[in-house]
């Protein structure tokens, strides 16, 4: 087990380095001229040559690329995420203030997706091709197709229209004002949770259907075990392993999906600042946030892999 953990962590560290290079390539080298990303293709033509040069020097973009890369990585290693062009708050402070809200949303959505997805999967798999199963399958196909941010917009609109209700605008931590905090995070949490629940129900159903046909399930039935216990004790634990892996992959859906969903709800979370960074062409903030999201995604997936290895000896002994 320990050697598996060590291997996975070293792999993770390599991936983070690779990801940092990739982020740097995309944000700094791909545009050819980083000023394109800052001013836009049209804005760039309005700058004079001297203006361009002074901007480039001021931003340290005239240094060789490897020096820029090393400086960026060094800054991040020291916790210095730079500053936005538009706000006085440093990016590190912004992450600390807004990050917890997005983390709460992600947590709520993952918990919700299991609470909704797994029971639906069980009902669907135990009574395949009945009305309940067809309904569940149609619902999951529908929720995979609906864009989450649109559902969010509809919810906001409906609440305003019929109840005149609007969620609080200012971000508050859970411990300062739990009620206001929950009002902010519950909407995005539900929307993202439903989207994931659809995938989980679908995967859980097919995984459970496969496991139910296994010999050990038949043996358990044959020895006279109550059929509910057979499912709960024998079938479900094995059927859930692929679902846990899927749940890890779906975290990408949550992290990325929270950006448009937070915009739809006007949630003051990290996803919303990503949207702001994009719409303000704030390339350095964007670069750091993209890197942060990718690193979080990589680490969460390592966590999922380790959980799977902990639960399934076939993997850790390989």
């Amino acid at each position, binding site marked *: 087990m320990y050697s598996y953990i060590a291997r996975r962590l070293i792999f993770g560290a390599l991936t983070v380095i690779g990801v940092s290079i990739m982020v740097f390539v995309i944000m700094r080298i791909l545009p050819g001229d980083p000023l394109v*990303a800052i001013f836009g293709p049209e804005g760039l033509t309005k700058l004079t040559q001297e203006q361009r040069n002074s901007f480039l020097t001021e931003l340290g973009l005239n240094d060789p690329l490897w020096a820029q890369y090393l400086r960026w990585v060094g800054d991040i290693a020291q916790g210095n995420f730079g500053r936005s062009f538009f706000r006085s708050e440093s990016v590190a402070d912004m992450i600390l203030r807004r990050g917890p809200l997005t983390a709460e949303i992600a947590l709520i959505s993952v918990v919700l997706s299991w609470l909704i997805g797994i029971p639906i999967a069980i009902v669907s798999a135990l009574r395949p091709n009945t009305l309940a199963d067809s309904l569940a399958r149609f619902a999951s196909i529908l929720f995979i197709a609906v864009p989450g941010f649109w559902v969010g917009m509809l919810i906001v609109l409906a609440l305003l229209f019929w109840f005149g209700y609007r969620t609080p605008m200012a971000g508050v931590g859970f411990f300062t004002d739990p009620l206001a905090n929950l009002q902010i995070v519950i909407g995005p949490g539900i929307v993202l949770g439903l989207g994931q629940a659809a995938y989980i129900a679908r995967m859980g159903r097919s995984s459970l259907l496969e496991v139910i046909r296994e010999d050990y399930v038949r043996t358990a039935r044959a020895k006279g075990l109550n059929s509910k216990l057979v499912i709960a004790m024998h079938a479900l634990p094995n059927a859930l392993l692929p679902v846990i892996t899927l749940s890890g992959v779906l975290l*990408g859906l949550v992290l990325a999906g929270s950006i448009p969903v937070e915009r739809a709800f006007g949630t003051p979370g990290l996803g919303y600042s990503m949207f702001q960074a*994009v719409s303000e062409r704030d390339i350095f903030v964007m670069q750091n946030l993209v890197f942060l999201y*990718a690193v979080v995604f990589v680490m969460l997936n390592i966590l999922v892999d380790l959980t799977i290895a902990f639960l399934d000896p076939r993997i850790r002994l390989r």
Partner: protein
Amino acid sequence: MTTTTPSDRILAGPPSLLRRLMRAGAGIFRRAPLSAFWGVIAALIVATAIAAPAIVPYPPLKSDFRAMQKPPDEKHWFGTDQIGRDTLSRVIYGSRASLTVALGAVLFGTTVGALWGLACGYFGGRFDMASQRLIEFLQSFPDLILAMAIAMALGGGLGTVIVAIAITRIPFGGRVIRAVVLSLKEIQYVEAARGLGASHARLMFRHILPQCVAPYLILATTHLGVAIIIEASLGFLGVGIPPPTPTWGNMLADSLNAGLVPPWWLVLFPGLAITITVLAFNLLGDGIRDLLDPRLRGSI
């Protein structure tokens, strides 16, 4: 007495993929009426997008200042936006942007991915090792975030959105086709061809590639829906095709600027269009997968 022309002899060989698809198309209505139904819907959406200029009731960019932000009525079925543009016409035109981007991105991304996967699976060794790491790095980014970053760096527009979404599709093509090639490489007819001294290029493109067409088609159709959602999200976040081009994402973003309470018709209809389109393509993709290769159920 019948005469055989050379073309007949060619046609008489094992059924081509086109034939198989056509026969499948006839069979699909009997065996999978639901997929067939959604296939027809998908075809209708494509037809609408192509025929957009002929069927829209109003030009999508023309403002009518006498009818600004009007709820749906008999003149404007889907209402008008804050500067009096007809929402129905804009939703219809939006399908053009959406489908162009989705088709372009999926074709480009899946093709590059598939060729890369073919090379990885065929050559193996160090090239494969390095490629797999690179693909892993690409997959370390959630799709939408990678697309956002690339679209922002390249600076908006139809081409950049296609490229941005295409890059997020490459790893899927690479992974799936590589796995297919790895299993094909050991099959006897390939070994026989190798034994006869066929070149790498001939082995890859003449003997292995044709077997990858079915997985490739399945992969491409199942990813259309995702591509449409990413395109809409990019538009909604302001890094898609820039306004005033009507896209569904742009329209939804616009509706948020229409005052404190966004008019419901500006929110409802573009989103409905996205949902129905994605639903149609996803179910069509499922149907095609089940017909061409039921073993792949769940794996793609």
